[in-house]
Each structure stands twice: as structure tokens, then as C-alpha cells.
């Protein structure tokens, strides 16, 4: 992200949600974005996730400057390169857990329901939800729903998985399990995770913590790396083959 800013309103009602934020995230990193409520951390995550357009600056993912992408290309980019985990009600309650996990790849328009189903089942197995595959997503617990959301976030082998307060709605045991799942996945697949949280202590050791305060990225702190190299460009499975999975 380079010189990213987001301003809402005009004149006296002008609110600067994000002010000249710049940082890089490398492939395989596990990054926390922390800050107090209203600091702009969710706005920042939405910018990275291409859910919101910046007022200024640019988001470059895998070497692609996303600033000038059309609506359709942005949607397609989001679908193929980004995974999402939200705080509440992540899953579509009208679908089963398995169908939820299959959805991003079906949106991508990839053919072969059988293959998609196999991959989705493999992911559900990996997050320990194989038995709940055919359950309606409103029939499983909050912790299970977040694990299903992680599986869904990984189905298209994205460059980055973005999580907005993924444990904000969970009890401590479920929170621990979800965090462990994310961290182990990050390690195993060299998968980049960018996680917004107001409670970084829950996450233990992570690669980096970015602090947002009044819309400014005011602090960067490098913690002990969970994965070996940063920006190595290997093994994330983004399929892009481009600039080493770097988010600038």
C-alpha cells in the first residue's frame, strides 16, 4: 500500500479515515493490524480487500496496481486473489457448509463441480469440519463457522487472506482454536494472512503488527517470524507467478 488515504465527506464534516498509509506485506507473512475502535483499521482492511476505493494512493497486489481496475475486474481479482473472513455471520445461511466453501470457486466460473467439491471437502477435513459438511451453516457453532470461513477463504488459493476481527464473536476456547488454525495454515501453506484485531495478545508471535491510530499507520513492529523468509515468492499457490506475492 502506498500513500493510501480515505476521506469521507466535505468541508466541516470531512473525516479522514486513513491518512497517507504505506506498508508492504510479503508472501507468507502473518500480519496483524491493530488499533482502537474507529482508528481506521477496518477501513484499511477494506482497502486491501478492494471492497472500498481509496481517495488517494494505490494498492498493488502481486504486481497489479488495483487502482484502475474496472468493477468487474476488481470483483474477479477479489475472487481469485483474496480470501475473506469477517467477524459475524460469515457464511450464507441458506447454503450448507460445503456449499459455502465451494462458492468462491463457483463464482470464479471454474467448471467441474466434482473437482470443486473434492477440494472443498479436503479443506473442510483440514479444518476439522468434514462431519459438518452437509449441515446448514446456521446449525453450526460460531467457532465452526469461522473455521468454515477459513476453508472458504482458502479454496481459490488466494494471495492474501484478510480477516476482520475473526475471533471477535467467539469464546476463548474457540478463539484459540481459530487462531491456531490460521497460524498453522499460514505456516503450512506459506499463506499470507492480514488480520484486523483489537486484541493482538491473543495471537502470540506473529510476523508483524501494524498499528493504526487516527487513520495513520503510526507504528510498525516486526515480531519473531512465524514463517522463514519474507517475500520469497514461493508456495503460496496464488497461481499468479508474478512479483513474489508482495502487497505494497
Amino acid at each position: 500500500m502506498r500513500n493510501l488515504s480515505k476521506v469521507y465527506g466535505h468541508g466541516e464534516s470531512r473525516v479522514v479515515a486513513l491518512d497517507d498509509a504505506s506498508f508492504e506485506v510479503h508472501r507468507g507473512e502473518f500480519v496483524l493490524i491493530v488499533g482502537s475502535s474507529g482508528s481506521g483499521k477496518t477501513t484499511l482492511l477494506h482497502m486491501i480487500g478492494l471492497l472500498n476505493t481509496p481517495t488517494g494512493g494505490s494498492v498493488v497486489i502481486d504486481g497489479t496496481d488495483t487502482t484502475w481496475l474496472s468493477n468487474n475486474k476488481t470483483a474477479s481479482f477479489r475472487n481469485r486473489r483474496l480470501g475473506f473472513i469477517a467477524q459475524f455471520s460469515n457464511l450464507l445461511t441458506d447454503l450448507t457448509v460445503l456449499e459455502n466453501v465451494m462458492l468462491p470457486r463457483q463464482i470464479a466460473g471454474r467448471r467441474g463441480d466434482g473437482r470443486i467439491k473434492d477440494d472443498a471437502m479436503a479443506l473442510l477435513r483440514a479444518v476439522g469440519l468434514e462431519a459438518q459438511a452437509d449441515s446448514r451453516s446456521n446449525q453450526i457453532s460460531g467457532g465452526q463457522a469461522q473455521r468454515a470461513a477459513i476453508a472458504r477463504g482458502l479454496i481459490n488459493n488466494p494471495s492474501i487472506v484478510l480477516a476482520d476481527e475473526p475471533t471477535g464473536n467467539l469464546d476463548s476456547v474457540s478463539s484459540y482454536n481459530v487462531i491456531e488454525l490460521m497460524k498453522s495454515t499460514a505456516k503450512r501453506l506459506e499463506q499470507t494472512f492480514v488480520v484486523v484485531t483489537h486484541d493482538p495478545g491473543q495471537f502470540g508471535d506473529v510476523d508483524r503488527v501494524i498499528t493504526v491510530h487516527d487513520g495513520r499507520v503510526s507504528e510498525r513492529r516486526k515480531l519473531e517470524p512465524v514463517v522463514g523468509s519474507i517475500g520469497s515468492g514461493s508456495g503460496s499457490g496464488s497461481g499468479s507467478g508474478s512479483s513474489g506475492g508482495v502487497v505494497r
Partner: protein
Amino acid sequence: MAYRMRLAKRMLFSKKGSLVGAVLAVTVGILVIHVNFVIFQGLYDAMVRDAKDYSIGDVQITDESSLITKSDLAIIGWFERIPSVEAVAPRLSGTGEINVTKNGELIEETRVPVVGVDPMRDMRASTVHKTVNEGSYVFARNSIVLGSNVASDLGGAVVGDSVKLMVVDRWGEENIRRFIVSGIADSPGGQGFDYSVVVHIDTLRDMMAREGETSSFLVRMADSSQSAQVRDLFLRSFPSEDFVAETVEEAAESRLEGFRSGIAMINMIGYFGMMSSAFAIVTIQMMLVNGKTREIGILRALGARRRDVLIVFILQGMLIGAIGAGVGTAAGLGYTFYAKETKMSFNNSLALEVSYDWVKIIQTALTSFALAIIASLYPSYRATRLTPVEAIRAV
């Protein structure tokens, strides 16, 4: 497309109240059209049917300016050569004054239309004799059938009563004859001879001094679809005569014309009703869209394009239209079946002539299906206008 259809179905069926409401809106729209059709088209067809059965036949032959002077045998003989013609009957029409006396005392006197029939031929060419509920049809030169209204006007004349009929002949002379009431005719809706009296055609010819003359010939076809060909053939065969040959629809045009305009207006009201249903669908689908903001947000966050969201909600409109059209058509057919089987009538009036007009049935179903899709366009468009952030905030 499969996942969009799955989503459309699941999202729609999870809001059962909205689904039922929307389907009901389409169903009611279709049902109104069917009920209108059964009643008003049924009435129209019943009038045509009764006109055909009682007074006109499939084809009616008249003279352009006065009475037909060509002999019955010549006309009937010509028609009977045609295989698709079942029967032909002559009729003579006039007016007269009728009175009834009992014990030498005049009970009542009234002016009536008089119809002269050839009983044997008439019973083959028309079914008006079946409207004689009491007594029998004209069987002798001095027998008379009274329409139920005439009988009532005569102070409740009954079979066996003696009545006097006065007819002014072609020379202006009053001609009075005594008749014995052989029957009372009463038809549902008064489409038969309820307001007339019926006598033997030879008797009436004699009274009117119209020997061998005829007002009209009723031609009953074995195959009604051949009516127009027979009409044309007849006119070509008698080019020098002033005959008028008309099918029942043409002959009854003057009395059906106004009714047909009424049907067109009722149909228009029905289609307006259907459009009201479309507005109901717009409202219900807007509620569906508002209730699914969270889902739209998730879909958009997962990379669904606006077009994908649009398709999901248009598919919902198609589902509503398809189910509504199915249920509405089934309900409409049920009503039509009921009306046909029970020979539905209102206040003992003429029984509706109910038919299944498959073209109209399919047209109505397709129109309501199309309207449901059109009605879903705006809500679907609104769904696509939700920005991902706006929608995801509802998550």
C-alpha cells in the same frame, strides 16, 4: 449458473412468507383473468349457443329486403344435398294480439311476436322445442306454444287453455283464429321463445296471407366449422336472388357487438389487475433484497460481480413467475372445470358455455411469468447498487 440458481432458490424459499405473498399475487392476477373469461366469455358463448340452437342455426338464410318467396322445398332440397348439413327449417315471423277468455270472460290481452314453424323440421334444426317445459311443442294447425312470459301476461295461461290470436294480414285485414295451448316454453335467460308465441308455419302463412313465403331458414350443420363454406356456396348458387346468408356470429352481430366491447373492457381490467400483482411483486422483492443485504455483501466480498447478483434476483423473479403462473393456471383451470361441470349459471339464467381456450390460458400464464420477471428487474438492479462495503457492514 447452477450456483446462482441454487442461491436464488434457497434465498427465496427461506423467506416463505414473502414467497407465498409473491406467488399469491401472481396467482390472483391469473385467477382474475380466468374467472373473467369463464363468466363473460362463457356468457357470450352461451348467447351465441342459444342463438344458434333457438333462432339462427349455424347459418341463417334471409332475404335482403322482404320475405323469401322461393319455395321451402327448393331451398331445403338444395341444402340437404350437402353432407355437412344436418337439417334445415323454415320460419315465418310476425306480430299479433293474443287474448285468453275463461268462462266467456276476457282475462287478459297482450301484443306478442308470433313465430311460425314447421314442427317436424324445426325439431331437427333447432332445440327450442326442448324449452317447452309444460305440454308439448306445436303439433297441429290449431295448437300454440306460449312463451312463459306471454303465459304470465295472460294471467297465468296453462296448457289446454283456449286463446285467440289476431294477426293483420298483408292486405291490412285482421285475421283471428282460436288456438289450444299445447305447451309453455321457458328457457334459461329468456333466449328462447319466452316472449313469443309459436304456431304452425302454414297456419301463420294463411293468417298473414303469405302463402309459401318464409322469413328465414335455419341451417343446422353436422360440422359447424363448414358454416362459412356452406354460406358462400349458397350465395354463389343463387346469384340472381336477394338472399342474405350469414353464420350465427354474423347474424347475431348486432346483439353481441355491445357485449363483446364489454368483454374487451373486462379483460383490460383483468390485465390491470395482473399489473397490480406485478407491483406487489416489486414490493415483496424489494423486501427480499433488503432482507438479504448481508448475503449480497458476502457474495460481493467473495468476488461476485454485479451481474451475478442481478442474475440471482432475476432468477428469483423467474421462480416466483413460474410458480405463480403454475399455481394460478391450475387454480384457473380448476375454476373453469368446476364451472363447466356444474353448468354454472347465475340466478337461474342461461348456463355459461364454458370452454378451455388453451391459447388464452397459455398466453395468460406467459404474460404473468413475463410480468414477474419485469417486476423483479428493479429490485434486482437495486441489489446490484449496494457497494460491497455498504452491504458488508450489515454482516
